[in-house]
């Protein structure tokens, strides 16, 4: 059973636009929600993460919005750049356990 659902599967955005990726989870025991960025041929790299006691976290052009009651969270990439073109994975985790990943979103930012 997929515990973290991610959408859309692919996304095309113009340079300077906002990229939005959404995730929903089922297990209320999750207490840490990271986003990973993966370039072709590379392993996933942590981009930004949030705990459920916070509704929003911003780091540079990247913002996570978190809705605990709806069990949903999203990644917003402001002023998207061609260098942001990659696959993005949301994930969920609780201490001492493994990461549960969403299916991924392939982002393409057109110049």
């Amino acid at each position, binding site marked *: 059973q997929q515990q973290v659902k991610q959408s859309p599967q692919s996304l095309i955005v113009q340079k300077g636009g906002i990229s939005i990726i959404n995730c929903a989870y089922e297990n209320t025991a999750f207490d840490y929600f990271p986003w990973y960025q993966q370039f072709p041929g*590379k*392993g*996933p790299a*942590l981009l930004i993460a949030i705990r459920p006691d916070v509704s929003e976290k911003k780091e540079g052009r990247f913002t996570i919005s978190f809705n605990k009651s709806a069990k949903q969270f999203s990644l917003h990439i402001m002023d998207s750049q061609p260098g942001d073109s990659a696959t993005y994975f949301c*994930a969920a*985790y609780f*201490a001492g356990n*493994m*990461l549960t*990943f969403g299916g991924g979103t392939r982002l393409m930012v057109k110049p």
Partner: protein
Amino acid sequence: GAGVSQTPSNKVTEKGKYVELRCDPISGHTALYWYRQSLGQGPEFLIYFQGTGAADDSGLPNDRFFAVRPEGSVSTLKIQRTERGDSAVYLCASSHGTSGVETQYFGPGTRLLVL
């Protein structure tokens, strides 16, 4: 500092053969994870080590898969009687393993192709 390294980067084998995939975690990290990533999908958990022992091996798909970490550092994922369905990228990650929620740092993966 050095990140997580994995060898080989690519492995091509024939159906029925045995393969070993190696992971060198970040120095000092006691927690080590193996994940498997099929084409176009997110990584799926296989096994988690805390020190030398497997704390959670619930993700191993069957008894053809086995992993060890004898000295609490390097880990080897072993796959017996490989099948075409085993073709995937095998990712290793490590974390400090000292408390609560921690960032997992991933290696570049080993791309396994079973012909």
